[in-house]
């Protein structure tokens, strides 16, 4: 697996730059420290951060999908790369 990884150039890691977005959004506290606009009675401070949990997960998922595409890991070759010695990759 490590040998396959080494062939990847630095540039192919670009999708991981997307991770900067949740960091900037969450650490820039003044951008969300307010009450208005409320959503169904919930102040902005709360629904905005709760919403970012979903957005954050979406970013991770997106990076994973692009990463997988870039490395062009097909089902068959992945079995060779990461021998999981069963029982199943999912369970």
């Amino acid at each position, binding site marked *: 697996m490590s040998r396959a990884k080494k062939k990847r150039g630095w540039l192919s890691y670009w999708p991981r730059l997307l991770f900067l977005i949740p960091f900037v959004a969450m650490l820039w506290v003044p951008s969300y420290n307010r009450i208005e606009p409320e959503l169904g009675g919930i102040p902005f401070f709360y629904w905005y951060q709760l919403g970012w949990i979903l957005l954050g997960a979406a970013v*991770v998922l997106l990076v994973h999908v692009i990463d997988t595409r870039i490395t062009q890991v097909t089902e068959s070759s992945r079995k060779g790369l990461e021998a999981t010695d069963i029982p199943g990759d999912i369970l």
Partner: protein
Amino acid sequence: MTLDLTATIIFGALFLFVTWLGFVAARWRKADLNLLHEWGLGGRRFGTMVTWFLLGGDLYTAYTFIAVPALVFGKGAMGFFAVPYTILIYPILYLVFPRLWAIAHERGHVTAADYVRDRFGSRILALAFALTGIIATMPYIALQLVGMEVVIGALGFPAGGFAGHIPLIIAFIILAAFTYTSGLRAPALIAIVKDVLIFVTVFAAVVIIPAKLGGYGAIFASVPPEKLTLAPPSGDSLGSYSAYATLALGSALALFLYPHAMTGILSSSSGNVIRRNAALLAAYSFILGLIALLGYMAIAAGVDRDPAYAAGFAQYGPNFAVPALFLASFPSWFVGVAFAAIAIGALVPAAIMSIACANLFTRNLYKEFIRPDCSEADEARMAKIVSLVVKIGAVVFILAIPQAYAIQLQLLGGIWIIQLLPPILLGLYTRSFNALALLIGWAAGTAIGTYMAATQGFASSVYPLEIFGVTLPGYAALYSVVINFLLAAALSPPLDFMARRSAASTAS
């Protein structure tokens, strides 16, 4: 408070069920449990689903479910830092840990200390890792007991004296027994039950309780306005803004360095399992966000002013807010379900933490320094015994020492554990760092972080750092690990140079 019989019976029945499950787990994916990687890492065979339950059960603990809403209940918006924190842990998990898993898998590492010993060739650095891990985890296990004690007390068992501790001691004997026989398989299997119970409880809570209190608008309207947002900075201090951001970032960086998180990661079956979980674990984060809001629901329900719960608040402080809210809002049988969810939520991480400590002790202290020639079976036997000792230690800790100390030690635990970050992170990409420089960085970071907490009387981990006349109150763990990093980087080249020269002079 009188004993709530219906709730207690439901609670007891669920507890018995997971006890049975804990023992049955030994036969799940049957393997030789006399091997440490089978007992202590489940044979590294857990796929995406099991890892999801295991890490979820591991990271979102009983104490989280009690303490996060308690913090929101007591301090308002500041307590909500747990939400950005759980958002930031997953990019970090994705970036760092699949690579760590690959190295650990290839080289057969069971603990983080195994990994640094191999990467930097230093037994002393590995020893520092093992000791830090064990010392930082012990109060964490004790806090799980605090979470369990609060719900047992809320069921109406007598709180004071030795008799009050008997249910807790029984629970821990059960925990110790099934961890001993089944290893990591037990918490992995029980985590599934725990999570189902937690999901049911939380969804019921966020639907039923607001309906009773007149909707979310009414709940937020009943919270004092100054609690709803962070106090904006004044003068030349960044005030609560920098505190909020650094607490979130520092806690996120520290989380996966804890031995129990490392155990959960290393027990997965591939790097892709970890990557997938970095996205899927957000489901727990969302639950945590909802749980945090329970703190405000407790304010709106006015449980702290209700004389029926006065004794509970007197005994447990703000930690009683969620149990009181459940008692006030749910029928007895569902209170039993909810409290069982929290108590079982204490068993799972406590089991994983004690296994992680046992792995560290056995691999990096016993085998390394005491009996290098011990067999694999000896290794596993030692780990099982240590897992018992660790749990007895945690129980004694809770019985003998006031709760406040456990919380303060947990605060320090975060500061200590984050000091492991530089060697772990650097080790992923380079082996050229000097082990002595990393050790000096670790020692300095630990000392400075502890000093920062000491200046706050160990009551808070937020240290008012002054730079160029501006005060930046922030998480001491984050500040001290920056110093650790800088020292390791600055000292590495000269120490390497000296080592090479002395090697050359002895050769000639």
